[in-house]
């Protein structure tokens, strides 16, 4: 079974099948971009794999943030999407019309709303202020347009990804 692994710049085709379960590791046959490799994997903790490949020893940390896998090894950080190649790839549709939903980039407290519904704003203009971990962060309009919705109010707590405002351009 093959997967497409994409870090935004590179697309790799990875096929893995397990050869053997041993007391301290599992052996896999991995075909990556057509090349066959034997890989020993020992899972040290949920996020931490010890991998031996051609004698090299890698501590690889794999974490899932949303739908992406963030992989850290030897100080480098990669972010991958991993897709089953048999799945029909659903192309993400471009944003319908000029309506853009701006979401919270972090959990926090809305400490100030600087605009009101229906107001015209320029790209880069501050719309509201989100405070998290003692830092005030101005959330700006990403494009010029009209603010059509602000579903939050001053004093509200928001989570990562919650809608903050809608802008139509």
């Amino acid at each position: 079974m093959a997967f497409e692994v994409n870090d935004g710049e590179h697309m790799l085709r990875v096929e893995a099948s397990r050869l053997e379960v041993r007391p301290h590791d599992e052996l896999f046959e991995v075909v990556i971009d057509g090349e066959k490799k034997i890989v020993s994997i020992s899972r040290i903790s949920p996020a931490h794999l010890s991998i031996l490949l051609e004698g090299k020893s890698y501590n690889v940390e794999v974490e899932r943030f949303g739908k992406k896998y963030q992989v850290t090894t030897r100080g480098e950080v990669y972010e991958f999407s991993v897709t089953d190649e048999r799945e029909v790839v659903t192309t993400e549709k471009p944003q319908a019309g000029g309506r853009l939903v701006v979401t919270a980039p972090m959990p926090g407290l809305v400490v100030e709303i600087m605009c009101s519904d229906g107001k015209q704003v320029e790209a880069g203009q501050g719309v509201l202020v989100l405070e998290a971990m003692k830092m005030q962060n101005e959330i700006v309009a990403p494009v010029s347009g009209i603010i059509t919705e602000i579903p939050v109010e001053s004093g509200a707590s928001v989570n990562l990804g919650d809608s903050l405002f809608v802008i139509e351009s």
Partner: protein
Amino acid sequence: MNRISKILIANRGEIAVRIARACHETAITSVAVFSEADRSAKHVRYADEAYEIGPAPSVESYLVIDRIIETAVRSGCQAIHPGYGFLAENPALPAACAAEGLIFIGPDADSMALLGNKTEARKVMEKAGIPIIPGAMEPLKSEAEALVAAAEAGYPVLLKAAAGGGGKGVRVVHSEDELPSAFIRAGAEALSAFGNPDVFLEKYLIEPRHVEIQILADNYGNVIHLNERECSVQRRYQKLIEESPCCMLDEAMRERMGKAAITAVKASGYTNAGTVEFLVDSSGDFFFLEVNTRLQVEHPVTEMITGIDLVKEQIKIASGEKLGMGQEDISINGAAIECRISAEDPETFLPSVGYITELVEPAGPGVRVESGISADYDIPVYYDPLLAKVITWGKDRQEAIARMLRALDEYKIKGVKTTIPFHRRVLIDKGFSEGNYDTGIVTRIEHHRTNDFLEISAIAATIVAMNDENVDFVSDVKQDDRWKLSGRNYGGIRS
């Protein structure tokens, strides 16, 4: 001499643990205070006693002076250590301590108030003959006043909280039209962080080096300095990496800056541990920036090169002991460097709150970790994103940097994003490793990602993704041989 045998630590996180450790080593009983959000935090567990002082928001708990004083009195403490941040630079705390007969481990209220007011401090230093940065000598009363002062000093200018420190409430303003919004933001941040919205303005020096001098002053007029710290790796006026000694200082300049720091301390009647901050421009001239009237986040680098435990010295001074050493006893042994590990995205620096699923701290020769977190800990959204600090020591700067790179590679904090990858990028930067850098370094650092580990990382991601989705690896593997998703089964890959 007032023997101190029990101390209330009016703080949380790594610094509260740091202070409790000093207490543990000197047979002093430590008392922690905590908000409702912090019941299971490390500092609560570390202290000998712990008392809840209010709801999660710090204005209702860690910033409530009355409740802290009351807790100290009721639990039989003789002294309060404020750490840094929160109430550490609020003169109302030492004043309240004095009123209740408690010892405040820090300066008295008057010298703290004097130096805490950045505009007053500038006046005192100017009078004492210490060079200051051009700018307003009074806090700004209005946007209009700010516009006038900025025009006088000439853009770019810096807006700074008059009451604070540590980079909070600081904004750089490049032109007149940026000023109004920045003035409002800086004031709001200043109010939120220090309970005082006053902001002042000074000329913005372009890419200076930030060099500070650690001092110790007892109650009998004895003042010594413990050499410098170089803190030029900053972002948004927040220090990120600090080191000692500073590469650009020779013995003569070290002595000149040390003397200026001692003069500054004496001129303000300051006692206990403190830091005199300077900006050094490219020609090697230095200007007084401010005095931090408390223990600094970066105090460990000084401890590593001098062998002196600054928290213990603070307690001794507060209890009325004379300094046990003179300037001639202070030397520099090797080199030390500190990286601040924050729960922030290493690219955007946005806060990354969440649950710490896994924690492995670095160890081995020359590595010191000061941490306020533990595994299975939910980082509260209410407080500063600083999770921990790594400090490394080496016989020279090169060894200290090599050890830091090793330590960062060993450090695993999973569940949230941290600034560890950022630090790694700075440390391998040519300018940094050659010691040739200033406060502009962070904006200049480029990260050329190597693709050497792309394949191995893609393989790891694939295998974890297959596991997550319960994909059969081979069709002839029996159901119960599949990857186990939990438990500590020794056969098979554990997760």
